[in-house]
């Protein structure tokens, strides 16, 4: 896979993240997450083709099954089951979110992070984009009010770290693979158990109702 297609795929991920930032409807951001993880599996599959390392194949299958199919389906089912209100409110209105996303991407491409993005000189533009992805997904968590969209935000954040790892030449390393697997495992538990608990106690998945624990 030459650099051009990699850039093209990364562009798709970038768009999905931006879209989930702005999208009013919650289901949109879940579908966005699905597309994102699909692209990640393609990338890992590509690095498997290049290196022929069997464990990579195992991870490709795992991520494909969990992130692309299970997670979105599960969240959509959860939304239907709890008749969660469709609109996922955010703290800032859309133009302001756009401005912040733009500034974050500019920061990621700036001179400050130059050493970070030239770990592998060839992937310079890719790494810069991946870094901006990390910052934007971090901002996504801060901006969203619903509990479900916060989880989506955290998962996108985790996806962008994985992408950055892949492009920074860590495909082979066992650490990255273990990290991904364990992360998936953790988030399955959290989303299943906790979401139902919150819903049982708070009646809605809106985080803003949970503010009585203050000094």
């Amino acid at each position: 896979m030459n650099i051009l297609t990699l850039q093209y795929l990364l562009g798709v991920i970038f768009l999905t993240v931006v879209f989930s930032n702005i999208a009013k409807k919650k289901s949109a951001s879940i579908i966005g997450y699905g597309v994102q993880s699909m692209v990640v599996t393609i990338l890992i599959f590509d690095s498997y083709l290049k290196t022929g390392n069997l464990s990579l194949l195992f991870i490709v299958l795992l991520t494909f099954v969990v992130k692309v199919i299970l997670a979105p389906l599960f969240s959509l089912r959860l939304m239907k089951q709890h008749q969660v209100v469709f609109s996922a409110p955010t703290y800032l209105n859309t133009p302001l979110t756009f401005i912040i996303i733009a500034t974050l991407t500019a920061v990621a491409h700036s001179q400050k992070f130059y050493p970070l993005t030239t770990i592998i000189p060839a992937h310079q533009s890719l790494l810069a984009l991946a870094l901006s992805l990390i910052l934007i997904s971090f901002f996504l968590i801060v901006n969203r009010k619903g509990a479900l969209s916060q989880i989506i935000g955290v998962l996108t954040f985790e996806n962008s770290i994985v992408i950055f790892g892949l492009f920074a030449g860590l495909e082979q390393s066992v650490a990255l693979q273990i990290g991904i697997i364990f992360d998936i495992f953790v988030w399955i538990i959290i989303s299943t158990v906790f979401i139902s608990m919150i819903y049982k106690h708070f009646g809605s998945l809106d985080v803003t109702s949970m503010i009585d624990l203050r000094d």
Partner: protein
Amino acid sequence: MEIIFIIGSYILASLTIILFRRQRNIAKVTSVVVSIFAFIESMKVALKVASTGAYSFMFFSIDSLGAIMMLIIAVIGIVTTIYSLQYFIQEKAKNIIGSTRIKQYFVLLSLFFSAMFLAVTSNSPILSWIAIEGTTLSTAFLISLYNKSSAIEAAWKYLIINSIGLLLGFFGTLLYFIPVTSLLENGGLITWQVLATNAVHLDPLISKIAFIFVLIGYGTKVGLVPMHTWKPSAYTKAPTPLGALLSGALLPVAFTIILRFKLITDTTIGPIFGQNLLIGFGLISIVFVSFVILALNNYKRLLAYSSIENAGMITLGFGFGKAGIMAALLHTIYHSLVKSSLFLSSGNILLKYHSARLKDVRGVMKVLPLTAICFTIGFLAITGTPPFGMFLTKILIMTAGIKNYPIVSVIILLSTALLFIGFFKHTSAMIFGEKPEGVQSGEISIWLVIPQILLLGIFIILSFYIPPFLQKLLNDVAVSFP
């Protein structure tokens, strides 16, 4: 070898509790037995490390820092388990909590212990990261044990903030790995030693960024100020023994991982960068907490903020370097002992007064005389009044700091004074005064006081006489740090 036995025994304990759900107090017996076994094992490990130095095998590598942490976890572990036996009997008597929940508590507790032991002794950063992630999970469920809406909210906040922190930590570890993976092709697990040896190839700027990510990531776990927000609500809503464990054991464990990464960054770009960052965070934490404590109205949050302040003091100690490191290590040991005894005493008060608000708690000296005495000694020790050891470590940290950071040390001293006033205001309001009529005086049960007396006893002995093997371990760690 002992470490495998410890972790194995904990996992085994949690399995047995799950399987033999029928028997009445299987959970209690197994957890006590296992924690005693773990204490003996970690004592053996500590003695071995003191005599022969660090050793590693399979997935584990135990150095002197790890040995000290194991000792702390084991001691706090035994005491809290003993305390929680009686604590939950009382809670069940007042039917605040059902027996299934208590079984869940002991299962999660042993998982929590095994995760902590793994985190401290694992030889690869990724394994420690997974272990810390494990602790977050287990404690999240423990916090939401009471199944009340506030407990759920506290658990949710704890979960979200800590997982973001750990993701930052994960990203930081990845950055450390980047130059290393290209070297060794076989894709084996990258250990701390591998990282340390070829840390010199690390690009200085990347190691700086990586250390920032790691510090902020694991700093959320330790609870330094900008990332401390989950602590007060988590400690208040969690069952009391867990509060003692979180602040007594989990805080130092998370801190050791930051220290290990600091070692690597120090070899690449020298200690000054790491030290400045630590001092910065330490300073903000202490100053922030010393103001907030004055305006609190809940004594559990008071203890939470006090552990944030002590975390700040420990970071400061490591930030000042040289004599400060030995003092900071001692401060960690003393803080774990005293803070857990304070938490357990606050548990007694909660059992008696049924409310954590400072306004409702009066005349503890009349209602629970022994707990009041333990609480006062704990308060005097934690705020660093001289006869106890923590004053000495505070002074040693200050002497290390006065040389090249005089203004920082003066600010710290003034804010510790302010902290003393805040803490003292609340404690004297609680201890003295008339007994509210609804509360009948008399200690609940002797088993609820012995753990605190045990902890304070160890603390007082340690503040005057440090056993040789511990002295040796401390020196090894102090030497290994710049």
